[in-house]
């Protein structure tokens, strides 16, 4: 096996919509800027307007891949083509919606020499929004009062079922809305179901500070690396726009308990509210790195690099002591794209800094 420092690493989720960016470009940046990494990052994008396709500072070359709804066979065929051109050593999937396909392809990709540190299907399903409450009640982690919904009629009888507005309505994969009455709730329900399918999750709002932990599980129940962050400013969608590293033992203990219970393998993000009562309430577990993961590089606990080290079998992840007080502030900027590159993406599904024909 080649030294991980010289790997070609494919990264997905390289869309960068300002209000809700994918984590891929931040993961790529973590790898490219790490002092030991001498390899390169290959961007895998779903849309010709995904910024990472054209960001050659972070993605040396990039390819379009089929949308997750096309299924795992279509993804495998496309990856085989890209692999024959590029020689991929590892993939770091960065989007929830594609993980099922990558989980299905784990052994096929391993046979091609492509490694991934990802959870099993059981692990992935257990942490899903519709199973989270059961998991948490078994291991003693508090969650806001929640209910899975397929019938929007619930919102008219919410009070009778013991739920008080405001409530949070969440899509099965992404997206959420805070609603203050049945009318708003039904509108949010329709929008979320229309976009992400059934069911929806409804949760009571817990007042407190929103804390997040990004980490990596080793598949044997250990949280091998982590960074904790408190959001200081959020977008309209509640995504972190600014944040600061913190040290919260209760959050660390909760995340460790979840990783142990799931025997989680791979990157994850644990989102919690620290209530005004001091108690930690789990909001959700995302099965991938968050879009603020570049903060891990900034505090010398580079978690995407930790994933490569783990895949290479290294025991010492070389993470420094977790220190509080490092801020990030996200900003949007324009990438300039020339017509030739845009044409190459639309015609060949490829964009890169060389002149090799990749139209296969």
């Amino acid at each position, binding site marked *: 096996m080649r030294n991980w420092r010289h790997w070609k690493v494919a990264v997905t989720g390289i869309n960068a919509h300002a209000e809700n960016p994918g984590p891929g470009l931040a993961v790529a940046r973590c790898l490219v800027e790490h002092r030991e990494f001498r390899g390169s990052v290959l961007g895998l994008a779903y849309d010709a307007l995904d910024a990472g396709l054209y960001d050659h500072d972070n993605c040396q070359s990039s390819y379009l891949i089929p949308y997750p709804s096309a299924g795992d066979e279509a993804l495998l065929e496309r990856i085989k083509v890209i692999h024959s051109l590029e020689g991929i050593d590892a993939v770091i999937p960065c989007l929830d919606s594609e993980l099922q396909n990558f989980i299905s392809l784990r052994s096929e990709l391993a046979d091609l020499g492509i490694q991934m540190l990802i959870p099993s299907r059981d692990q992935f399903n257990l942490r899903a929004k519709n199973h989270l409450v059961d998991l948490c009640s078994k291991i003693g982690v508090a969650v806001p009062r929640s209910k899975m919904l397929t019938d929007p009629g619930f919102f008219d009888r919410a009070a009778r079922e013991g739920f008080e507005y405001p409530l949070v309505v969440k899509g099965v994969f992404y997206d959420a809305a805070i609603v203050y009455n049945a009318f708003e709730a039904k509108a949010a329900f329709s929008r979320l179901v229309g976009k992400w399918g059934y069911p929806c999750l409804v949760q009571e709002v817990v007042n407190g*500070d929103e804390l997040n932990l990004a980490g990596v599980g080793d598949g044997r129940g250990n949280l091998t690396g982590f960074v904790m962050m*408190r959001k200081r400013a959020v977008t309209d969608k509640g995504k972190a726009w600014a944040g600061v590293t913190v040290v919260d033992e209760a959050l660390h203990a909760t995340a460790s308990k979840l990783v142990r219970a799931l025997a989680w393998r791979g990157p994850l993000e644990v989102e919690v509210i620290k209530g005004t009562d001091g108690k930690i309430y789990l909001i959700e577990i995302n099965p991938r790195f968050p879009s603020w993961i570049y903060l891990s590089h900034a505090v010398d606990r580079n978690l995407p690099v930790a994933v490569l080290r783990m895949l290479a079998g290294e025991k010492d992840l070389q993470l420094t002591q977790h220190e509080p007080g490092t801020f990030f502030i996200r900003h949007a900027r324009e990438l300039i794209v020339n017509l030739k590159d845009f044409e190459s993406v639309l015609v060949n599904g490829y964009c890169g800094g060389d002149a090799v024909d990749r139209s296969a």
Partner: protein
Amino acid sequence: MTDSLLAGALSQCSGDRLRQLAVSDTGFVFDPQTGQSFTVNATGRLVLDCLKRSDGLEEAAQCLAEDCDVPLELALSSVEAFLMQLGRYL
């Protein structure tokens, strides 16, 4: 009312909790547990320093009274007032 506010503030501002705070010479205070930051003026910094070095309110007031050369009663009421305000940020 004031007593209950003070009791609440005292529970929020235990010695261990205060010793976690990073306080710079400029009066910038960062709470590593919550990520919150705020500023205190020179007197506030002095009171905070006394509180961090002391085991209780009276000891902190004694420290403040000596540093500022004011009567103990005045120092005690100042420390209490400061604590009640600090409790809102921690």
